[in-house]
């Protein structure tokens, strides 16, 4: 790596980590979570970046270089659909196969009747989560995998061989991508490690949202026990995949565990007590958590204050960023909050005006990272991402 690039990387890393500690860096760090936007910018289809992860890596690096961002995610088109096809995962709609080539991949939640875990299977999940995933869940979510007790097939065996080797290839590629972002672009890999709330995992990939909603009334104690059974495993995965240097945060993708999807009572009894200890464990291991608060979590901001100061970075999606700053700004760094509709449908002038408002009111004392509200997909206009970036560079200097 050239000396100049090393210096640039060091400056950006310092800027990013200073802001994440809720302190004031030299200027506001810019860390967009760009997904299919990288395809738009580089002239690829959504199919190309979803199905060929090397194209996604290359497009991300080109964006990081051209825009000069401080940090970004190595590949925010996070589902490599060639791998999910090899494993036979049914729940992804793949661009170019199930969807037009220019539509981003989509999650297909099954109907309540087709849910991947049945309502009478809580005890089996609670007793042995890993065994349940291999023996019950995987045969249901894969077109290839045969359930135990039935004759095995070549397709069954190939699912695990190709899936295992493909996953290894992907993560080696992602690791190489982190190095190339550093050496070619001077850009920091923004996150390391993955976490989801036990409640959200139960809703997303096991019972389904509709099924879980019913379970909350039929068997709330089982739901709680299942969340508790998932906790040590989700903690294990988050720790095992985190940044060994403890510089960048573990990403927590927050889905539907908030009011009004669930009640305050359900949040207080089920969602929060099975998530909070995981965050505290990560923090005790020297790791911050990026709360990627998808949707609106405004009803729970005061609850989040229970977490140790500095332990999270609160990312604003649909919430009122000014209210989030008022309630949480003294304890945690805040990121995001530039509405995606603005980036997709409005003018660069309007983008700059909104960025100014956020910088003036949220970022004045540091502890803010510029980003869109949600991950940036292929509807965002290039000139608007450019406006967000350039304005922040010009105006966001302390």
């Amino acid at each position, binding site marked *: 790596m050239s000396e100049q690039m090393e210096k640039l990387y060091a400056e950006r890393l310092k800027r990013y980590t200073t802001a994440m500690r809720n302190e004031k860096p030299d200027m506001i760090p810019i860390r967009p979570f760009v997904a299919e936007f990288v395809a738009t910018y580089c002239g690829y289809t959504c199919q190309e970046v979803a199905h060929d992860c090397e194209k996604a890596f290359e497009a991300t690096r080109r964006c990081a270089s051209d825009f000069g961002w401080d940090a970004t995610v190595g590949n925010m088109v*996070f*589902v*490599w659909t060639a*791998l*999910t096809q090899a*494993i036979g*995962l049914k729940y992804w709609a793949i661009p170019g196969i199930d969807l037009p080539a220019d539509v981003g991949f989509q999650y297909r939640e099954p109907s309540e009747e087709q849910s991947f875990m049945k309502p009478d299977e809580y005890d089996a999940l609670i*007793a*042995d*989560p*890993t*065994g349940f*995933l*291999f*023996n019950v*869940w*995987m045969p249901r*979510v894969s077109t290839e995998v045969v359930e*135990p*007790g039935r004759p095995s097939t070549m397709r069954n065996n190939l699912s*695990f061989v190709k*899936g*295992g080797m493909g*996953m*290894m290839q992907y993560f080696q590629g992602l690791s190489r991508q982190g190095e190339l972002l550093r050496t070619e672009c001077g850009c920091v890999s923004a996150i390391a490690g*993955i*976490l*989801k709330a036990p409640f959200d*995992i139960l809703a997303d*990939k096991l019972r389904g949202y509709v099924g879980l909603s019913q379970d909350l009334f039929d068997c709330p104690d089982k739901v709680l026990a299942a969340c508790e059974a998932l906790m*040590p*495993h*989700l*903690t*294990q*995965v988050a720790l*095992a995949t985190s940044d060994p240097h403890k510089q960048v945060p573990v990403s927590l993708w927050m889905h539907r565990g908030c009011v009004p999807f669930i009640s305050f009572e359900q949040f207080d009894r089920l969602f929060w007590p099975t998530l909070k200890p995981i965050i505290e464990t990560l923090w005790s291991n020297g790791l911050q958590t990026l709360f990627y608060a998808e949707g609106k979590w405004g009803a729970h901001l005061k609850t989040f204050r229970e977490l140790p100061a500095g332990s999270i970075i609160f990312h604003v999606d649909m919430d009122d960023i000014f209210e989030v700053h008022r309630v949480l700004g003294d304890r945690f760094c805040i990121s995001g909050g530039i509405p995606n509709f603005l980036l997709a449908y409005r003018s660069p002038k309007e983008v700059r005006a909104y960025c100014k408002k956020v910088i003036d009111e949220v970022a004045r004392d540091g502890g803010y990272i510029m980003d869109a509200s949600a991950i940036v997909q292929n509807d965002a206009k290039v000139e608007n991402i450019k406006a967000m970036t350039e304005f922040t560079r010009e105006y966001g200097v302390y």
Partner: protein
Amino acid sequence: MSESQQPQRLPGECFPYEEKKKEISEVLGDPQLVEKMWKDIDGLGYMYIWFCLLAF
């Protein structure tokens, strides 16, 4: 260990070494090395299934 048996699987493991050890009459060399390598590679199987659940 048969498919139907349910071992106590801790976070990070699929097929606990304590179960595997029952299939080995005697380790003639370094038993700690055997245990470590079993656990390391077993852990990859664990990451595979949990990554399918969490990320893919």
